[in-house]
Every structure is written in structure tokens, then in C-alpha cells.
């Protein structure tokens, strides 16, 4: 994007969002949601530190953005009915 220091803007201004960072590659354990157990309380959506629980519309079941989910396991730990399990990613 910038060939030499001369091309840099006078102050450092960010130009693109972190969506391009594939933080999902950090993950060792993958959250898997059992929709039969999910009661759509959206606890996982509220607490996910990585904005990786997707609920498109009110009433929808949650799904996971595996491109960005870091596998912290907060969603699984705090899901009331225990609908989320953490499964080891294959090596």
C-alpha cells in the first residue's frame, strides 16, 4: 500500500477495519452450538469479546463467525442451558 516512507500520510491514519485479520487461526477449541438446547437468551452474543456470535434478526438462533472466533470458551461457559461445547480443532 505504501511503497516508501514518503508515501505515508502526515499523521498515521487507519484505513481499513480489523475484519481483515483472521483471528480464527488463533483458535485451539471451536465452539459448537446445539440448537435443540439453545433457548435464544443471547448470553453468548452479549459476552463474546470478539463480536463472533452472529444473530442476524431478533428471534434468530445464534451462529458463530469462525473466521474471527478466538475460541476463548466464554460462550460455552456462560450458556445457561449448556448448548455450546468446545471441540478440539484438528491439527
Amino acid at each position, binding site marked *: *500500500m505504501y511503497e516508501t516512507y514518503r508515501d505515508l500520510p502526515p499523521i*498515521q491514519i*487507519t*484505513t*481499513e*477495519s*480489523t*475484519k*481483515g*485479520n*483472521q*483471528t480464527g487461526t*488463533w*483458535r485451539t477449541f471451536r465452539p459448537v452450538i446445539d440448537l435443540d438446547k439453545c*433457548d*435464544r*437468551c*443471547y*448470553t453468548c452474543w*452479549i*459476552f*463474546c*469479546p*470478539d*463480536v*463472533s456470535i452472529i*444473530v442476524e434478526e*431478533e*428471534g*434468530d438462533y445464534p451462529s458463530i*463467525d469462525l*473466521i*474471527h472466533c*478466538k*475460541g*476463548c*470458551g*466464554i460462550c*460455552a*461457559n*456462560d*450458556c*445457561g442451558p*449448556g448448548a455450546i461445547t*468446545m471441540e478440539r480443532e484438528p491439527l
Partner: protein
Amino acid sequence: MARGGGELIREHMSGKFIIPREELMHPGHSACPGCGEPIAMRLLLKALGPRTVMNVPAGCCAVIPGVWPRYSLKIPLIDHAFECTGATSSGIRAALDAKGMNDITVVGWAGDGGTVDIGLQSLSGAIDRGTDFLYVMYDNEAYMNTGSQCSGSTPWGAWTTTTPGGNEISHRTGKKRILEMLVENGISYAATVNIAFPEDLIKRAQIAQSIRGPKFLHILSPCPSGWKMDPSKTVEVAKLATQTGMFPLYEYRDSQYQFTEEIKDRKPVEEYLRLQRRFRHLSPTQISEIQNLVDNRLRELDARMEASRK
């Protein structure tokens, strides 16, 4: 299994958003897995909305909103030196005033080290000037971005690299009472909030936003690497901090102190301590010393509330 926030929220109807839906944070930011800080930042921005400008000093707060050339927040953000949060917020407010923009919320967001130690003078100055802004201190209880050194907000007994056996000598009286210090300094509104109580966090942030003048929020923000705990326990540990009285939730508003979350059936501090390996070296005597510290602190707060009502 003990749950973090789950049971609290499940009392509500299912299939409904109980916090604002609008997302002002992108995924892909550089916080460690399970970090409490992006939870706090995301909830705060949901409360305040997009007409917000933020400024951040050194700390994990400088990398989570994006490492150049990328940004993770959908609001304007200024990065500055470690000790300047209050001064920078005053400057932003002055610039907005000069442009006649009076519907913007200015947020200075800094760590505990950046607040109770190095940024204290600059914050005090901003309060003294009566700057209309919200100062948010996310408290992970040490200088975490540089690998966990003790700060004025580290609780007594916690392991850090500069207090390898726990802080034996300093901090016997607990964390610096930053909120009370700022009240004496002349702050308009102040509250402690906790990521494990998201609805309360959002409510306090919106109250702060509605008041003119300098405001302060103190957010407990667990750090899995520095607290040496399982990253999945962040919300559970944060919740226990309040349930054990280690981190009471209270506010200062209209010259009165009051609890915002009553602690019913207070749990022993040990339940909180044992989930974190930064407290692993503590002897039973030391744990009861921490229990005493917490009991005394809550008595002191009760007295303060009583006195402010007179």
C-alpha cells in the same frame, strides 16, 4: 457448574435483545482470547451510540482499537502518550466546542495504571477544568500490556512480576480508592460497573452520558493472562468479584453514594481467589486477611453512604 452471567439473563424472554443491537466494534481486533476489555468497550459503545469520540493512552487499550493500518471501532479514535488521557479529552472537547458540535460524547478510555498512577494528574486537571467528558478506567489490576507489573490498583496479595510473592508490604489497605478521590476532586457522576452485569453497565453509561461535566466509570476487566486463569472464566470471575464484595457496584450521583447492585448472601472471597492462579501462593491466614480487608472496605462504604444521605 457455576455460571457467569447466564442465569441472570435467562430470566428475560428468549429471542429478544436485552442490550442495544447496534455493533460499533469490528471483530479481528488484537485482544487476547477471553479478554474482558473488548467486552467492556463493546458494551460501552452500545450504550453511548455512534456520536462518540474516544481517546486512548498506552496500554492494551492502544492495541485493541486496532493496530495501524487497521481500526476495530466504528467511531473516531485518537491515540496519545501514557499520561495524557484527561488533557487530550479536554482538547477534543475544546475543538468540538469551537466547531459548534455539541451532541458528541467524548470518552477518555484508560487502564488502571494509566489512571490511578501515571494519568492521575491529567485526569485531575480535566475535572478541575470542568471538561464535559466521560473518563472510563478499565481495571485489569496491573500494567498488563508490558507483562503484568503491580499498579496502584493491584489488590493486596496478587502476584505480579514486581510482587512475585504477592504484595506483602504495599497495598495492605487495598486498591487506591480512585472513585472517592475523584469525588473529592469534584466529579459530577461516578460509578463502578462490571462486564458481568451488562444491563447495569449500559444503564450507568447512559446516565453518565446524560449529565454535563466530568464523569467517571470504573469497569472491572479481567485479564486471563495476567490473572493466570482460564479465558473461558472471564465473565464468571468478574461476577464473583461483585458477589464476594471484592468489587462492589456503587455510584456517586447528586452528592449521594448508593449501591447499584445489592450484594445478597455475600460469598467468601476464597471462591473468587481460587479461580485465579495469581492468588495461588496465598496461605489460609493471608486469605482471611483479604476477607477482613473486604469486610472493612464494605463497612467503610456503608458508612460513606450513610453520611452522604445526611
